């Protein structure tokens, strides 16, 4: 296991470096001058040159890249031209709502999805199974913005259980402001959980070791919850990790609907403003989060199934 973890870690570091290279050069090769934009297009050539000099944008690309890498290591991601503030500070304020939203959404998806998948798999093609399929497909077919609006309309405006928009920190604030957005995200993820988990559970429940566990007189809950579920979750974990990877930096729709000042909307704003440093930093952080997510997924799967460690050795 130790060897497996070390290998996976080394691989992740390599990917992160590659990510830094790609984000840096991509943003510098995209047409459009951030200084021009920051000065509102009215800047004289002299003023533009002066700002470029201040920001170090007139130096050779490789020198700039070296500085960028050094900054990444020390946690200094530069200065936002558009907002005239340190990038780390701006991102720091906007990262938490998005991260909490994703984790909360995942939690909702698991709480809804896992029991439904088990119930559906225990009586495949029964009334309950078909009912679950119908409802989850319906939830999946609804676009996130519409589902979010409906939830805000019902639970926010009519029932007044939750505020319709905004974000507050602290446990109480998070529960109040992020529950509806998390349910919006969670419902579409729950469909993925139900679908994948149901089908792999059905497959696992046919195996001989499940038969053998039953033959030892173990109860159905133990057989399904302990013997079958651990074997069946692997596919769900893989699919969920890909989905969450998409959500990192992709929560913008839900953030817009509920007016949450998150990283997704920050990314869109900064791209529009040609805010080099900020876009670069968000892309890097989002990429790093995805790399860490896939590392965590692999380690989780290796913990659950010992054969994973062997297969990838």
């Amino acid at each position, binding site marked *: 296991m130790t060897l497996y973890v070390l290998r996976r870690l080394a691989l992740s570091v390599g990917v992160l470096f590659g990510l830094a290279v790609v984000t840096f050069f991509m943003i510098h090769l995209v047409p459009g001058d951030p200084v021009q934009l920051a000065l509102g297009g009215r800047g004289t050539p002299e003023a533009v040159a002066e700002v470029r000099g201040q920001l170090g944008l007139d130096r050779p690309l490789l020198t700039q890249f070296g500085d960028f890498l050094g900054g990444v290591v020390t946690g200094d991601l530069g200065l936002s031209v558009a907002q005239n503030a340190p990038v780390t500070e701006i991102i720091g304020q906007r990262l938490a709502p998005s991260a909490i939203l994703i984790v909360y959404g995942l939690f909702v998806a698991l709480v809804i999805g896992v029991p439904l998948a088990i119930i559906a798999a225990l009586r495949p093609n029964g009334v309950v199974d078909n009912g679950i399929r119908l409802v989850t497909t319906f939830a999946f077919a609804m676009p996130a913005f519409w589902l979010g609006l409906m939830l805000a309309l019902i639970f926010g405006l009519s029932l007044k259980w939750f505020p319709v928009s905004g974000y507050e920190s602290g446990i109480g604030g998070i529960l109040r402001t992020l529950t509806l957005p998390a349910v919006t995200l969670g419902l579409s993820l729950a469909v993925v959980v139900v679908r994948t988990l149901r089908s792999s559970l059905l497959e696992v429940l046919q*195996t001989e070791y499940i038969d053998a566990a039953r033959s030892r*007189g173990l109860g159905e809950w*133990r057989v399904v919850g302990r013997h079958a579920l651990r074997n069946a979750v692997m596919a769900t974990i893989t699919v969920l990790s890909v989905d969450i990877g998409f959500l990192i930096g992709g929560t913008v729709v839900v953030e817009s609907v509920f007016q949450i000042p998150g990283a997704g909307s920050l990314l869109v704003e900064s791209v529009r403003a040609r805010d080099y440093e900020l876009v670069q930093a968000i892309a890097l952080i989002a990429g790093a989060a995805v790399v860490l997510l896939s590392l965590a997924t692999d380690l989780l799967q290796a913990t659950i199934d010992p054969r994973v460690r062997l297969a990838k050795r």
Partner: protein
Amino acid sequence: MTAVAQDLPGVADATTDALLSVDGLRVEFGPADAPLVAVKDVGLTIAPGEIVGLIGESGSGKSLTCRSIMRLIGAPGRVTAGTVDFEGRDVLAMSSKELRDFRAHDVGMIYQDPFSSLNPVMRIGDHLRETLRANRGMSKAEARAEGIALLERVGIPDPERRYLSYPHELSGGMRQRVMIALATASRPRLLLADEPTTALDVTTQAQILDLLTDMRRELGMAVLVVSHDFGVIAQVCDRVCVMYGGHVVETGPVERIYADPQHPYTKALLDSVPDMESAGNPVRREGIPGYPPELTDVLPGCVFAPRCAHARPGCTSVPMVLQPVDAAAPDAGSTACPVRPFSVGGPFDPVAGSPPDPVAVPVSPQPAAATAAMTAAETAARAQTGDPGDLPAPGEARITQPTDQESTR
């Protein structure tokens, strides 16, 4: 082996004092109005401490019969008739709580492939501890100690280390030993062994069979061994039930069945087993001509008649009923063949049901269909002997031929 059985109470007369008795068992698949019947009117008794073999080709219904005893037939299969009586309790009528209790304490089961019958993501110790805690109410520490003791008892070296191993870290033989430890963890009085040695190599097979007989002696546990291999059955069993096409066609003590089979199918099955002397001999043992019946085939008479070398015209209408081989000796078992002795030819009257007098009746030519089948088989046999690459190696001598027939279709 049988000497042990005779020392145990109840073995001499299996029918009066049975641990398990299955009667009129019927297992169906498919739609209820046009079912495919896989097991038809099967009866079986096992006395305490007795080892009974259930032998037959693939598709003969032997595994389904075995699983029915534990009610482990998954949908779409279902038991539609019969009783499974275990010490006076009807297993088929048990509530789910009673059934769990029955599985937990009275009966254990081991499977053909020990790799797929152990959960791949659980350690050996997790399996044992879970079972011991759930079924014998042990504490964690007790379960660990007992689990290691169980592994030691089934002959696993270094049991403390193996307790922490995963199934994929063990060899096939070791895994089957673990399964036996697991299935016998709550000291059941009956062990169902569904093809317990089929997935193992020949030396490991012998070790596992030895272990089963040892465990029987130590625990006084009865065993039902399901196999397609007469070698396996002969090595461990006291009595045998021969199944064909969903029916029990013959049953009796293993020595009697071996020496004097009273059903043509049993005889054909025994004749198809290559013996040690046949090693290197270019003449191959004769297989059984034709194929086993499909589930869709509904035969009014004897289910083996279409392939039987001794079939008479009446055989296709006679009902399949087990009758004592020898009315004077009930222990000799019974056979479903109404023609006795079947090896002597002659007309057979299914209405009278009486076997023809072997002396008075002259030998008549075989029915045309059977003759044609025989000729085809002989042609096939000759074709096979022409190919020296097809000869059984000495190590393969234990493997029976009939089960290969499905793969040659």
